[in-house]
């Protein structure tokens, strides 16, 4: 076996051990070492050189980046997740045919979908979705993220939150917690428009908070304009300016009419 390959595999074993111990400092230190070592392999993206050890090197590199992604989730570092995921992606798309499929592929792809959802990058979410095959869409990890997006778009927020109990993979919990926060903000925004007032206990239930105190803290932090009056939560709606619709937007009309005249003159 190639000495360099052996070295990398040894460090990788130590990285795996550190990950199991949840020793993040050691793990990230080992990971940066590994990344530097990986640069020397010619068979990896973007060079894809046909070396005798290509398959071994590619498999090893894929494993390393998969662990890097998991590590970034455990460290709750979204930027690192994005970087590591993009480094990992070519191993799935460009050399996917040459390697046996990784067991981690779908969980990680699903995780990425979830991240895009949490960051409200819906356009990218759908772009990624287009890349997945019909088989991939059937996978529980991916299906989970896809169904979440649908419930999110429809507004069935309680379904989003029950999904937290049925996470297909332990690493999903971090993003699900983040998602819960996004969902709460959405619900607050919707409730403000939809209700005139709510009983405090109902509001607590709808906003999915566990105690009244939490509710009051949330109101104070996010929506100071809401009022709490003898057990009722009153949303101070911005009074719809019905007066403005009766007013004629004269300046705009004049501009438009003048432009019609100008254009017509050009035609005739």
């Amino acid at each position, binding site marked *: 076996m190639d000495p360099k390959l052996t070295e990398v595999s040894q460090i990788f074993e130590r990285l795996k051990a550190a990950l199991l111990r949840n020793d993040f400092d050691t793990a990230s230190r080992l990971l940066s070492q590994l990344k530097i070592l990986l640069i020397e392999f010619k068979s990896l993206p973007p060079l894809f050189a046909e070396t005798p050890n290509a398959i071994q090197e590619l498999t090893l590199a894929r494993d390393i980046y998969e662990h890097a992604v998991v590590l970034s989730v455990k460290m709750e570092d979204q930027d690192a997740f994005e970087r590591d995921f993009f480094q990992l992606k070519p191993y799935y798309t460009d050399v996917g045919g040459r390697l046996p499929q990784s067991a981690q592929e779908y969980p990680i792809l699903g995780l990425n979908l979830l991240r895009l959802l949490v960051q409200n990058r819906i*356009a*990218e979410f759908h772009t990624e979705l*287009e890349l997945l095959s019909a088989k991939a869409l059937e996978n529980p990890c991916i299906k989970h993220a896809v169904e979440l997006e649908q419930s999110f778009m429809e507004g069935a927020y309680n379904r989003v939150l029950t999904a937290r109990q049925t996470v297909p993979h332990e690493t999903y919990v971090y993003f699900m917690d983040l998602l819960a926060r996004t969902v709460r903000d959405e619900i607050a925004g*919707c409730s403000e428009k939809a209700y005139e007032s709510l009983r405090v206990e109902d509001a607590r239930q709808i906003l999915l908070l566990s105690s009244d105190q939490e509710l009051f803290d949330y109101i104070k932090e996010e929506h100071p304009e809401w009022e709490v009056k003898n057990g009722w939560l009153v949303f101070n709606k911005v009074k719809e300016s019905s007066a403005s619709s009766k007013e004629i937007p004269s300046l705009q009309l004049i501009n*438009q009419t003048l432009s019609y005249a100008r254009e017509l003159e050009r035609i005739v």
Partner: protein
Amino acid sequence: MTQDVEMKEQQVAFPPSNSASSPTPVLQHLKEIAALIETGAYAREVRRILRAVRLTIALRRKLKVSVISSFLSFALAPGSEAHSRLSSYLPKDDQNDMEVDTATSASQATVKHSSELEIYCYLLVLIFLIDQKKYTEAKACSSASIARLKNLNRRTVDVLASRLYFYYSLSYELTGDLSEIRGNLLALHRVATLRHDELGQETLLNLLLRNYLHYNLYDQAEKLRSKAPRFEAHSNQQFCRYLFYLGKIRTIQLEYTDAKESLLQAARKAPVAALGFRVQCNKWAVIVRLLLGEIPERTVFMQKGMEKALRPYFELTNAVRIGDLELFKTVAEKFSTTFSSDRTNNLIVRLRHNVIRTGLRNISISYSRISLADVAKKLRLDSPNPVADAESIVSKAIRDGAIDATLDHANGWMVSKETGDIYSTNEPQQAFNSRIAFCLNMHNEAVRALRFPPNSHKEKESAEKRRERQQQEQELAKHIAEEDDDDF
């Protein structure tokens, strides 16, 4: 996806030629075209070469091995590298009816041939090979032609080159190796940009977009598209394709309003003959409009030659219009094979949300007050907790402005507000304005698109008109003569 490949040039009427004397009229035509290219190359008139390409497309169905090989001997010096290479791609023909022509070709072989003509020969052979479904040879031939093109830098070649790029990509697509040539296409696009070959850039950009979209690489496609230089379109066909790809990218990225505009424009600008392309545009446009909450008119689905292809989309539209989730599900399942071959499956999944919205809007219009349990039942939400689902769905619809209502949590009902008179708002005026702006814009674009080729009024005078004019002149002369007589 392959349907839209062939966007045929409009058939051009043939100039009357005295080909009766020649034994193979097609060969005669080809020679005329060759002459056209020669003059075009000599006078540096790109227009002539463009015309030559159009004439070739019209000849396409009549091409035969014998005709092409005799044309090759006519156009290229026999024994030259290009001649032997191109001949090797052609299948061997038993009946040797080339004798007829050897005399003429031998006499003209001494003529110095332009590189335009050589490239044209590549194009002709390539088209022939693709039509004969000899894709392996077509791939070899197109790769050879691309290699040859790299050493040529002449504006008059650009037109032919852009055609070759197209068939190069097509031959690889037909064998399913589209990803192989991506690097080459990118290199060619770079070269075309450096040489200010705008037609080539346009064609290559489209081919690259097609290449990316073939593998659903929307991200890469959009990055390339947004960074590639844009200029006014040279070819209507290429522009249509560009609009179609742009529409697809935007649809995936949820920019529905822009997507709709591009797709509808592509469908409108496409030549009438390009039915497959227009069907594709319409399919996508229908879905985008549905996603926008619009309901396409029935006439969209009844366009000539498209009824059958658009049928699944028609039923889908119907389900969305009624707002019936069950019906929507059955339609989506019934035509799932069509949708997955059109690769619109994921978009249809997105539509579920619109079906609910429409259903909700119908309920809100019909009832002034309705319990949330009934809303859930009417929407046919199948979930463990339908009332809670309905409540949050309704509240989101209210926030997004889809319905005008309020919720009463304590009693568990939804109260619709009175719908105001829309004519008391500025809404109609805005709609009116956008329509006028559209018409004026269309007129301006039409004026800009008019082209006046030099001396066109002289060419247009046909034989009949000339006779008529001469007759009139004669009569006038006679008349004057008579008047003169009267004077005496």
